[in-house]
C-alpha cells in the first residue's frame, strides 16, 4: 500500500512533464525545454556514476559521441533507419563502457579522472583523423527522427529518456544497489571488506550511465541534424554533464534536473547578451558551488531541511519521542 502511495507523486510529475507540449506551442520555448531535458538526462546519467558511486568521470563525451556517431554513420553510410541506429548505439555503449571501465577503474582518485579525460580525448582525435568513416572535422548531416515541422515529438522522446533516467535513479536510491553505490563512494576499502563486489557495482553504474548518455547522444545528433567531433566528443560536453549534476546536487535524485534547468536558462539568458559568455558563467558557478555550496542547490536544501527536522525533534523533547515510540 505504502509502495503505491509513494509512486503517486512521481507518476503525476511524469505525466505533467509529458503534457507540456499540449500547453506550450511556442517553438523557441519548446527548444529550450528540449535542451533542459537533454541536460537533465546527461546530468542524471553522470550522477549515477559520479554522484552515487563517487567515480568522477570527465570522459562521458565518449558515450554521448558514440550514440551520436552510431546513428549518424549507420544512417548516412548504410541507409539504416535512425531508430535502428539508436538501438545499435545502446548496444555498443555496453562493451565500450566495460572496456573503458576495465582500464580506468584500476586507477584511483585524480588518476581516474585524468584517465577518463585522456580516453575521451583519444576518441575525439581518432574521430577527427578517421575521415573515411566520420568525415573528420567536416562532420555529418544527420537525418531527423521525426518528420514534420512540430518539435513536440522530439520533446516527447527526450522527456521519456529523462523520465526513465530520473525514475531509475529514484529506484536505485531506494534499493540495495543504491546503498552499495553509496558505500563505494564513501569508503571503497570498507565496502570491499564487507563483501561488496566494488568493481562489479562500479561497472554496473558505468554501464547504466553510458547507455543513457548514448541514447541522449543519438537523440541530440538527430535534433541538431549535424554533428562533428568538436560538438559531440569534446571536453566541454563531459564537463557540462558533471557541472549540471554538481550544481544541482551530487547524489540526489532531482539534483541534475535542477542543475540542468538553472544552467540552460542561465545560458539562454546570457547567450542573448554575449555570445560565448555562458561558459564563463558556468565556470564561475562551478567555482562558487565548490566553495560555497559543495552539496549543490538541492543537496544543500535537503541538508537544511534535515537539520531543521532534527532540531525540531530535539526541541520536542526526548521523553515525548520515547513515549510515542513505546505506544
Amino acid at each position, binding site marked *: 500500500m505504502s509502495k503505491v502511495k509513494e509512486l503517486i507523486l512521481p507518476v503525476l510529475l511524469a505525466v505533467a512533464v509529458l503534457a507540456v507540449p499540449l500547453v506550450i506551442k511556442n517553438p523557441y520555448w519548446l527548444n529550450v525545454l528540449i535542451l533542459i531535458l537533454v541536460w537533465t538526462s546527461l546530468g542524471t546519467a553522470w550522477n549515477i556514476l559520479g554522484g552515487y558511486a563517487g567515480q568522477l568521470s570527465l570522459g562521458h563525451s565518449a558515450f554521448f559521441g558514440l550514440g551520436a556517431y552510431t546513428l549518424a554513420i549507420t544512417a548516412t553510410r548504410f541507409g539504416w533507419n535512425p531508430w535502428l541506429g539508436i538501438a545499435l548505439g545502446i548496444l555498443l555503449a555496453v562493451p565500450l563502457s566495460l572496456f573503458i571501465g576495465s582500464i580506468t577503474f584500476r586507477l584511483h582518485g585524480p588518476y581516474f579522472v585524468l*584517465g577518463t579525460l585522456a580516453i575521451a580525448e583519444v576518441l575525439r582525435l581518432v574521430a577527427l583523423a578517421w575521415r573515411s568513416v566520420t568525415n573528420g572535422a567536416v562532420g555529418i548531416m544527420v537525418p531527423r527522427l521525426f518528420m514534420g515541422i512540430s518539435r513536440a515529438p522530439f520533446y516527447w522522446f527526450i522527456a521519456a529518456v529523462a523520465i526513465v533516467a530520473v525514475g531509475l535513479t529514484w529506484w536505485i536510491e531506494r534499493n540495495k544497489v543504491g546503498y552499495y553505490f553509496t558505500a563505494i563512494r564513501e569508503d571503497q576499502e570498507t565496502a570491499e571488506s564487507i563483501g561488496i563486489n566494488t568493481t562489479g557495482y562500479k561497472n554496473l553504474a558505468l554501464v547504466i550511465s553510458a547507455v543513457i548518455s548514448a541514447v541522449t547522444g543519438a537523440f541530440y545528433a538527430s535534433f541538431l541534424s549535424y554533428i562533428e567531433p568538436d560538438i559531440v566528443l569534446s571536453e566541454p560536453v563531459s564537463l557540462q554533464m558533471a557541472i549540471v549534476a554538481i550544481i544541482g546536487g551530487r547524489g540526489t535524485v532531482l539534483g541534475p534536473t535542477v542543475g540542468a534547468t538553472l544552467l540552460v536558462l542561465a545560458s539562454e539568458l546570457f547567450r542573448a547578451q554575449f555570445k560565448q559568455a555562458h561558459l564563463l558563467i558556468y565556470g564561475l558557478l562551478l567555482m562558487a558551488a565548490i566553495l560555497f555550496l559543495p552539496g549543490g542547490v538541492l543537496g544543500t536544501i535537503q541538508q537544511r531541511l534535515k537539520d531543521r527536522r532534527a532540531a525540531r525533534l530535539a526541541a520536542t523533547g526526548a521523553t515525548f519521542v520515547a513515549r510515542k515510540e513505546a505506544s
Partner: protein
Amino acid sequence: MELLAQLPQNLVSGLLLGGMYALIGVGLALVFGVMDIVNLAHGAFLMVGMYTTYLLVNHLGLDPYLGILVSGPILFVLGMLIQRLVIKRIATASHMNQILLTVGLSMVLVNTAQLLFTADYRQIRTSYAETVIRIGSVSMNLAYIISFFLAVAITVGLYLYLMKSEFGRALRATSQDIHAAQLMGVNVQNVQMTAFGLGMALAGAAGALLTPVYYLYPTVGENFGLKAFTMVVLGGMGSVVGAALGGVTLALAESLGQIFVGHELKDAIGFFVFILVLLFKPEGLFGRARA
C-alpha cells in the same frame, strides 16, 4: 628508406620541443607533485602567458623573449593571488573538489580570453621564426633553438634554486611532511602560496617561449594541460627533475611516433602513453613511488 630519412629531423624537433615541455612539466610538478594540488588550470595559465606575450609584442613592440620577464612575474602574482583567494580554501579538500574547482578556474580564464581576443588563431611575426639553420639534412628554426635554450636555462636555474636556497629547502620540507615543517618553523602558508605562484610563473614563461613558435587561441592550453600531467606522471610524482625528463620523453615520443601514426594523431600518443604508464608503471619512469 623514407622512414629512416625522417628520423634525424624528428629527433631534433622532438628534442627542441622537449625543452619547452620540460618547463611546462616542471611547473605542474611544483603544484601537483610537490604541493599535491590537482591543478587542471595549468594549461589555462600557459595560455595567459601566451596572450600576455602577444600583447607585449603587438602593442609595445617588445621582443617576445623579453616577454618572459613580464609574463613570468605577472603570472607569479596572479598565481599567488589565486592561491590565497581560492586554492587555499580547498588545499585540504578532496581531490575531486580540487579538480572541479580548477576546471572552473580554467573555464573562466579560457572564456575570458575568448571574450577579449575572440576565438581567432593569432601569430606573432619575428625575424627569428623565418631564420632556418641547416645541418646536413636537418633544418632547425632559430626561434625554436632560442626557446629551447631559454627553457633549459630556466629549468636548470629553478632546480638549483630549489636545491640550494633557503626557500627551496622549506618547500621540499613542506612537501615531505607539512606538520614537521611547520614545527621546524617553516611558514608553510607562505611556502604553499609561493610554490603555486612559482608554478604559474613557469607556465607563463613556457607560454612566452611558445608564442614565437606556435599559434595562439583561447583553448591552446587544454592540450598542454593534460600533457603536463603525462610529463609529471612519467617522471615520477614529486620529482622536479623527473618532470623535466618526462617532458623531453613525451616530446620525443610524439615526434618519433608521428612518423608511424601521422601528424593528426600526434596528440593521442601522449594520452596513450599516459594511460599505459598509469597502468603499468605508476611510479613513473624516473622516480620513486609516492603513496
